[in-house]
């Protein structure tokens, strides 16, 4: 009986603001000594009402709003939204625009994964590696700025194509950057994967089994690190990916086995940097000539969008996994419905099995290991009369049935 009282769990709150968290989310840990016994989390601390703003604007305006859903995967959201609208309005995107979209999306993946690697090193207390990775990341940011005009919130994708062409003079700059990263990749891999302390901290830490990964519908590198062979670029190719040879990166290709731990997530992300370099090279050499947009004049484009009726989804493999946009248009300026599901939304629940039974020391790196993007994920916050409330599955189901009935009327 004294065992019970000695081991009484105590509560450690982490968040909404904490140095381990890059964005606000509230964790409640039930601890036993240094070991996590139970964990719960509450997102919804960074709700910005972007969908509400969008449903009062026309698609050309919304594209630039989607750029601001996420600071890192701007292209993924704009691309997913543009693809949804293009399908509804029946706009055929020129082939060259598809290639440019692919190139920018892959550069985004490179800089996002390098950013993540730095954050992961920092969570482990390895600040030298943080400074190194963020230093080499700068070159991809410079190239993105050269191609789009912006370091973040690129504003390059437009419904029907892209707003800027990649001219021949820009090829050497891209080549130079890719060469740097291909040369660096081996060094980065050995720095992260052969380092004794990183291996000690990450191997068999935060394990997500393949079964759990499938049951929780995880996406992107989080799912692939657990051995699930999913990658939208391979499964449902969009933009130029249909012409390219893209295969999902799985940890066993590099390590020979899959653990589904934090270490494997590092492996997958670093290897994807190399894969992105190859994809960009292939795109550059195979890029066809032609226009970069289906309709240059915005007034005409708006008229086409205004006439559009119907619904469609746009799916894009963002650096963190599948990014999903649903758009329903009914012949008005603004879309009738616009729903965004950021990739982190599918991955957040995998925190629970990953964190259970781990040590306090591993909480930061496990939380970071799915590369959470909470501001992009937060779609709803229920506050009435100054009081926050949580909607359970039954409530959400009831609300969605009611909404469907309303739509059917």
């Amino acid at each position, binding site marked *: 009986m004294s065992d019970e009282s000695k081991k009484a769990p105590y*509560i450690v709150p982490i968040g909404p603001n904490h140095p381990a968290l890059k964005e606000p989310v509230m964790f409640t840990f039930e601890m036993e000594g240094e070991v996590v016994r139970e964990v719960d989390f509450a997102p919804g601390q960074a709700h910005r009402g972007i969908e509400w703003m969008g449903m009062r604007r026309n698609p050309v305006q919304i594209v630039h709003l989607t750029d601001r859903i996420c600071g890192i995967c701007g292209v993924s959201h704009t691309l997913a939204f543009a693809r949804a609208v293009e399908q509804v309005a029946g706009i055929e995107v020129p082939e060259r625009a598809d290639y440019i979209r692919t190139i920018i999306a892959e550069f985004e993946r490179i800089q996002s994964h390098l950013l993540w690697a730095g954050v992961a090193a920092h969570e482990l207390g390895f600040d030298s590696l943080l400074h190194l990775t963020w230093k080499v990341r700068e070159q991809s940011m410079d190239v993105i700025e050269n191609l789009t005009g912006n370091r973040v919130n690129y504003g390059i994708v437009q419904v029907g194509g892209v707003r800027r062409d990649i001219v021949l003079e820009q090829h050497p700059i891209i080549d130079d950057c890719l060469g740097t990263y291909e040369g660096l990749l081996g060094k980065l891999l050995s720095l992260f994967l052969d380092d004794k302390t990183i291996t000690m901290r990450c191997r068999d830490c935060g394990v997500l089994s393949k079964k759990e990964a499938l049951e929780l519908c995880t996406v992107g590198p989080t799912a692939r690190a657990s051995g699930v062979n999913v990658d939208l670029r391979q499964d449902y190719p969009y933009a130029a990916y249909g012409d390219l040879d893209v295969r999902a990166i799985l940890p066993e290709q590099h390590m020979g086995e899959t653990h589904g731990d934090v270490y494997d997530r590092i492996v997958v992300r670093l290897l994807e940097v190399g894969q992105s370099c190859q994809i960009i090279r292939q795109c550059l050499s195979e890029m066809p000539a032609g226009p970069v947009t289906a309709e240059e004049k915005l007034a005409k484009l708006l008229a086409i969008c205004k006439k559009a009726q119907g619904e469609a989804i746009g799916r894009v493999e963002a650096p963190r996994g599948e990014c999903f946009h649903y758009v329903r248009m009914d012949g008005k300026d603004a879309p009738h419905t616009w729903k965004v599901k950021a990739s982190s939304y599918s991955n957040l629940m995998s925190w629970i099995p990953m964190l259970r039974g781990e040590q306090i020391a591993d909480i930061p790196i496990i939380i970071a290991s799915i590369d959470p993007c909470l501001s992009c994920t937060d779609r709803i916050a229920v506050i009435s009369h100054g009081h926050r409330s949580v909607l359970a599955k039954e409530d959400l189901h009831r609300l969605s049935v009611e909404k469907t009935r309303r739509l059917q009327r």
Partner: protein
Amino acid sequence: MTPAGIAVLLLWCVVLSFFALAGGLFLLGVDRKLAAHMQARIGPPIRQPFIDVAKLLQKENVVPGNAIPGIFHLAPVIALASSIVILFYLPVGSILPVLGMYGDLVLVMYLLTVPALAMVAGGFASGSPYATVGAQREMVTMIAYEFPLAIVVIGIAWRIGAAGLSSPFALATIAATPIWTVVGPLGLTGAFLLLLVLAAVTPAELSRIPFDTQEAETELAGGLLVEYSGRNLAMFYLAQGVKTLVLAAVIVAIFFPWNLSGFIAMPPWLALPADLLFFLAKALIVLFFAVTLVRVGMARFRINQVVSIYWIYLSMIGLLGLLLLMADAALPALVGVGP
């Protein structure tokens, strides 16, 4: 002791205290600058720790609602005072230990635990879960590194004692007879291993990466110190500086006790500052290898990993060093009984 003697003693203590505060902050500044350069950053100016302390002293001193105010306020004072006191028992440059006749290396070992214990008390008194976890980790870390530390101290003093010197634990004796001059080749290896062990204990004593689990910024948001602010935090920061100087002084006193005035003849008025500067240079080199280089090149360990590293690996290395020193002491005797 005559009143005049006591007055001189007190004067020395005051002078040394100021030297400890300034020297400690200077070492912290150099550490930050060197680490920054190794990480391809520019880094803050070397006087940054002085600026930080000056700023903290002006800031509000917040006491959390569920803290125990008495212990909460007492802990930083004890931490700072006890760290400074350790320096009175250590040789600094050519200044022999001021209180050398009242205590030896064993006392220094005990005193080294006092600042850590003060931090533990302060952490528990903060009434924050982060500080509580940090305090538990600090205790575990202390338990982990005390054994290797004891092996080093006992090993060196025993070998000096075996060389026929009286009072081997007195720091004046250790400083006067560097361990390297007493031992043969076996003993050199052994002493070198013990030096490695002591260097590995240093980051844990100073709670620096990879052994900074008790403060772990990304995990515990500062751990032990999470609730401290203003004057109290400034005192802990000063204590950290003084502890850095003290740890360097311990390594220098045991393993590198040479003075510049021992090599080059110089007038006494020049010898004192020259030796002090030489001491600071030695401390810097020791800290560069024991703290800065290590913290730049490694990730943070988990607390259970810290324990196994100290108890298994470093204790093994320490015991091996001790065995080598014993073999070294026994060897001349064995040769002596031969033909």
